[in-house]
């Protein structure tokens, strides 16, 4: 097991002791021959699932097997936005459950994930936008979720660098604010869950790629990996971005296509944007990291790819939109851009639960909204794995909904990979 508790006192001890007392945040064990649950994928969702299996359900013979290094997929490649202000009630409830977990996550994990409820604001650019935002806000309040409709003046005061001129292409008419939304430190989420799960006995096995499944008849009873065969009572896929590939190893085909989504960060500057800015009409989202870089993103690339490499023109569009909203960004410089591979599901909503194969479970299809769901997704998936039944909040997100017509189509544009 790994070192002691983190605290200011521990830092003081480190200062006096030349930082020698810190132990490993998580072990690096060899895979055991068998586990109760093998979770494929050491991203935030997989690690959270392992943690809640151990913590809430007392299931500690759990392995998280990760092809590469933990947190290296979409957990480490997103724009760190956390919010629950969706329109469809199933998504609202599921994501607000997650948001509530975020609110106590640092203490829960004894790892500061820097959850910063600085507010997540959707801007409206026309009366029609404002009506749509009000509708969304009304639906949220009806679910007991916070939403505040802000007028132009309030928005201008909150974000002084917004272009408030009335005669621009996308004039700002107001916005819908979720004050409980904000950002978190993405890497810390993976590391914090890993450290906390490790302390409960979960084996986190990096550099271990799943190459296939062990089957007993129609039942999946384990995985074959680059580090040997591991038996498991339950095998849980949790590899959003690569669900198609990993489910494909079992012969499953999903209502998912993998597409790349880009984001970028600028050089660090002193504080200039204090909240998360999004837009009802534009495909851009902007926030400033604690280090000072402006983190922003835009549209996916509109075609399937596993490349973790984006297309430059999408980046241009995303930046043009960000500059339209905050013209003072023009002279900032991009220091890095990157792309994640997202599981684009065919209704824009995630898939959590059973697969047609016994012993094999799926958590994926998060499109480009998975980071915010990290703790909640883990909680719900752990519940399903532990009890064999979906949690009430996860029940609508089953795989069977596509064949049965119960799709949860936030954007109303299905049945294709959803680009909003």
């Amino acid at each position: 097991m790994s070192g002691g508790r983190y605290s200011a006192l521990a830092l003081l001890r480190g200062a006096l002791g030349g930082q020698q007392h810190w132990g490993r945040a998580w072990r690096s064990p060899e895979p055991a021959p068998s586990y109760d649950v093998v979770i494929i994928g050491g991203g935030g969702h997989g690690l959270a699932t392992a943690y809640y299996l151990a913590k809430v359900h007392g299931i500690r013979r759990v392995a998280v097997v990760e092809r590469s290094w933990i947190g290296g997929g979409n957990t480490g490649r997103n724009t760190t936005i956390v919010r629950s202000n969706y329109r469809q009630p199933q998504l609202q409830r599921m994501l607000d459950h997650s948001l509530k977990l975020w609110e106590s996550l640092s203490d829960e994990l004894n790892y500061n994930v820097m959850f910063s409820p600085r507010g997540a604001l959707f801007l409206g650019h026309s009366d029609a936008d404002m009506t749509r935002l009000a509708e969304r806000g009304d639906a949220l309040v009806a679910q007991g979720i916070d939403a505040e409709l802000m007028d132009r003046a309030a928005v201008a005061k909150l974000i002084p660098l917004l272009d408030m001129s009335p005669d621009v292409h996308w004039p700002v008419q107001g916005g819908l604010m979720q004050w409980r939304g904000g950002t978190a430190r993405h890497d810390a989420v993976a590391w914090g869950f890993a450290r906390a799960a490790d302390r409960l006995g979960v084996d986190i096995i990096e550099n271990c790629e799943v190459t296939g499944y062990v089957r007993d008849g129609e039942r999946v009873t384990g995985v074959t990996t680059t580090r040997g065969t591991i038996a498991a009572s339950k095998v849980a896929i949790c590899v959003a971005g690569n669900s198609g590939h990993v489910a494909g190893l079992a012969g499953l085909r999903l209502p998912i296509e993998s597409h790349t989504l880009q984001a970028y960060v600028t050089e660090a500057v002193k504080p200039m944007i204090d909240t998360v800015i999004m837009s009802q009409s534009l495909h851009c989202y902007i926030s400033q990291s604690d280090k000072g870089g402006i983190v922003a993103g835009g549209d996916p690339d509109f075609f399937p790819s596993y490349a973790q490499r984006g297309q430059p023109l999408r980046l241009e569009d995303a930046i043009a939109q960000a500059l339209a909203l905050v013209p003072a960004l023009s002279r900032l410089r991009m220091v890095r851009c990157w792309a994640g591979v997202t599981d684009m599901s065919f209704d824009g909503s995630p898939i959590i639960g059973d697969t047609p194969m016994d012993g094999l479970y799926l958590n994926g299809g998060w499109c480009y909204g998975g980071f915010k769901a990290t703790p909640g997704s883990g909680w719900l998936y752990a519940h399903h794995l532990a009890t064999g039944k979906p949690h009430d909040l996860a029940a609508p997100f089953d795989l069977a909904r596509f064949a049965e017509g119960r799709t949860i189509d936030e954007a109303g544009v299905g049945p294709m990979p959803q680009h909003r």
Partner: protein
Amino acid sequence: MNARDGSPVRFRFDGREYTGQAGDTLAAALIANGVALVARSFKYHRPRGIMAAGVEEPSALVTVGEGGRREPNTRATDVFLYEGLVAESQNRWPSLAFDLGAINGLLSPLIPAGFYYKTFFGPPKRWLRYEHFIRKAAGMGAPPTAADPDAYAHRAAFCDVLVVGAGPAGLAAAVSAAEAGRRVMLVEQDCRIGGALLREDVAIDGIAGHDWSARAAARIRALGGRILMRATATGYWDHNLVTVIERRAEPGAVPPVDQPAQVLWKVRAGEVILATGAIERPLAFSGNDRPGVMLAQAARTYARRYGVKPGRRAVIATAHDDGYRTAFALADAGVEVAAVLDSRDNPQGTLVAAARGRFAVHTGAVPLAAKRSGDRVGALVADLGGRQQTFAADLVAVSGGVTPVVHLHKQAGGELVWDAGMEAFLPGASRQANRSIGAAAGGHSLAAILAESWAAGGGPARNFAVTDPLGDAAAPQAAPPPGAVAPGKSFVDFQNDVTLADVDLAWREGYRSVEHLKRYTTLGMATDQGKTSNMAALSRLAQAQGVEIPAAGLTTFRPPYTPATLGAFAGGAVGDHAAPIRRLPLYDKHEALGAVWQPVGYWRRPRGYPRPGEALGEASLREARMVRSAVGLVDVSTLATFAVSGPDAALLLELVCATGVAKLAEGRGRYTFMLREDGFVMDDGTVWRTAPARYLLTSSTGGSDRMAQRLSYVRNVLRPDLRVSVANLQEHFAAIAVAGPRAADLLAELTGAPPPRHMSCDSGAIGGTAVTILAASYSGERAFEVYAPADAIGPVWDALFAGASARDGGAYGLDAMDALRVEKGHVVVGAEVDGRSTPADLALAGMVRKAGGFTGWQGLTRPALADPSGRRQLVGLESLDGPIPEGGMLVPAPGQEPQGHVTTAAPRVAQAGWIGLALVVDGASRHGDELLAWSPTRRQQTRVRLSASHFYDAEGARYRD
């Protein structure tokens, strides 16, 4: 060769005026003026100076420019002086010399790498408070607050060969390629051609290096090649697309008249030749960040290229021959060279021999600590084979080996191979059509580089005669990893203040993957992207792992190679032109009538025509009542319109539309809708048979592109056998809907013929223009859509408007149109047709062809679509009090679970009151129920009664003839 005889240029740094000379970088000019302290570091606020002479500079970040041209975090080494340049130091308070933030240096034991993950617990609100101060302390320069006054441009370019880097290798390759008749483009990030030749005292084929460079450039241009200066290849993308950012104005400078500040080039190249050079590595020792500690090649560059002395008394600490060149260059420039410290035990060669004759050369000598004197280095303590010695010096020139610039090669997907001799990654196999030459490929002998580069350009083999007074140097070598670290901070990543101790700590805590190391310590994540730091960190990591560096792994090289101004990416897509605006053919007419414009996608459409003193809502209600009582004109030109012709036209339409088309008689039309493949309603419109084998299909404005794609897909992919033509006429036609009890009279007068009957079509002429008239009613009144070619619609509008005015009518806008259609219960795409509605949900099930055979029929059979119970269904809403909040939730009481929502709300037109449309669970069977239309975000609520969805002339008597 570079005496300081250029024209003087005045500039300011931290409020003080200085004079540099043309051609200087800001860094060179500061050095020339004796300024050593230039910046404060990110975390510990350590005093920092100038370390490098190029884009790799990690320390000397300043803010350049004023007002809207302010550019924080500009490397002093990457801005060339211009008259009036204003620069300021950053991240210090109250001043650069006295910075209170330096207290962080004293606190540093408390704030090692990743300390923030281990403290600041408690509720999120508490973290918000901590974060407030952390954010203020973090960041580097202050952000600009004013709008950017400058323009940026984009430019596509195509070439056979793109050469990146105009040093000796790039020039040789580019000349060779141009002479071979290839379309050549050469880009150079510097403002001068020559690369390494600018700092070396060499001749090629008997011509001094800088002259040789100039001649090469002239030759390339003469052969039709394109050379971009101050142009950095920042990204290497798929299929040999390279993005290049060309500066036409230095940071903070005013661009030339009518010129953009920067141009973003998108270069598609047949082949890319990467001559991107190599970057020198610093050495790890305590205090290795002090002002006056400088990369050896940079010191040489300042002495040779700029003619400035980077110090008075220098110590050179090197791991290989190249450092000796700096000793000669500095000595030639009049700098006292106190010692050359070579970490090798027994270096050989002509260069070393020559140095031994001139300088105090110590071998097996390793620097331990740089001591300060005031703001800059005052002495270097070194280990000379077990014996420590202190060398007084105000300049410590260091060379820990070189790192080839493989960024673009790696961005292009290429492999890297480890060169154990150089201890460096070199470009391996390429995945795209690119190759690396020169120092970027690990080359070090100029003659060999030139010959190889020439061959790479495609020319016949040839040799170059290189004259170098110091002779050829041996291959570069890397410094051995430091043994025991001296007390004090040995920086690895200067900009993010990451030390060797931080790397060790990350290892100890299990952040052992190189990516974890990077993210935990923030190593290599600063604006220099680790150009000078990555190899040192890898070396330390490999040392801890007990493996060779290649086994330790390598982080990804991501674009851009150097930080790139966001404005350049946006190009001309700013302000009014951030996206296209589509203008109506009748724009001028609407504008003259005082239209209030409404964005509908890229279109701008008239929302209403308020009279002076009239609110928009009042105007819209007036306009709607005008339609009910007289006649109104509304511009419907944006509707999607398609001509479908040929023997199989009806067949194609029946594949796309869920309603019957085949039985439509000539001259007749009908309402139709289309489904997505999953069975939900996609769009709606009308279809008209205008000739025996010709149909006109209209559908919604917003769905126009989607419908065009659908028609083409069905026709070309599903049914290539059909004998049919589909022409998109959205732009060809302009259309004016004429509605109201006097509409028929108006049309009859203008066309001289009785207008077509309801749901019939005809052709005619108005105002001398041939028109097609479709008799369809959206408003509930007798109505016609008049179609004419957009370039001839003006007279048609004029005639109609004059006729309408004479009948107490006029123009109406979208809001009036909406109020009219709500009263009639017509659904609209985007409100009731929200992508989640079935035909049955919208009370349209009766029109669906029972036999199927159209797109989406299979989706409709899915249980959740086929079973109406529990589905949201279209209802009308009658207000029992005031206006209904559009978008509001329909609840039994505030706070209860919504049973539906208000999709559209409008004032009644035909009488007083308010109505709306809604989608309500099981709504079709709930007419008469009362609910609350509740909008907590707007603090509005109105009691409503559910009803059938039409409120006006349910029998349709008014629009029949």
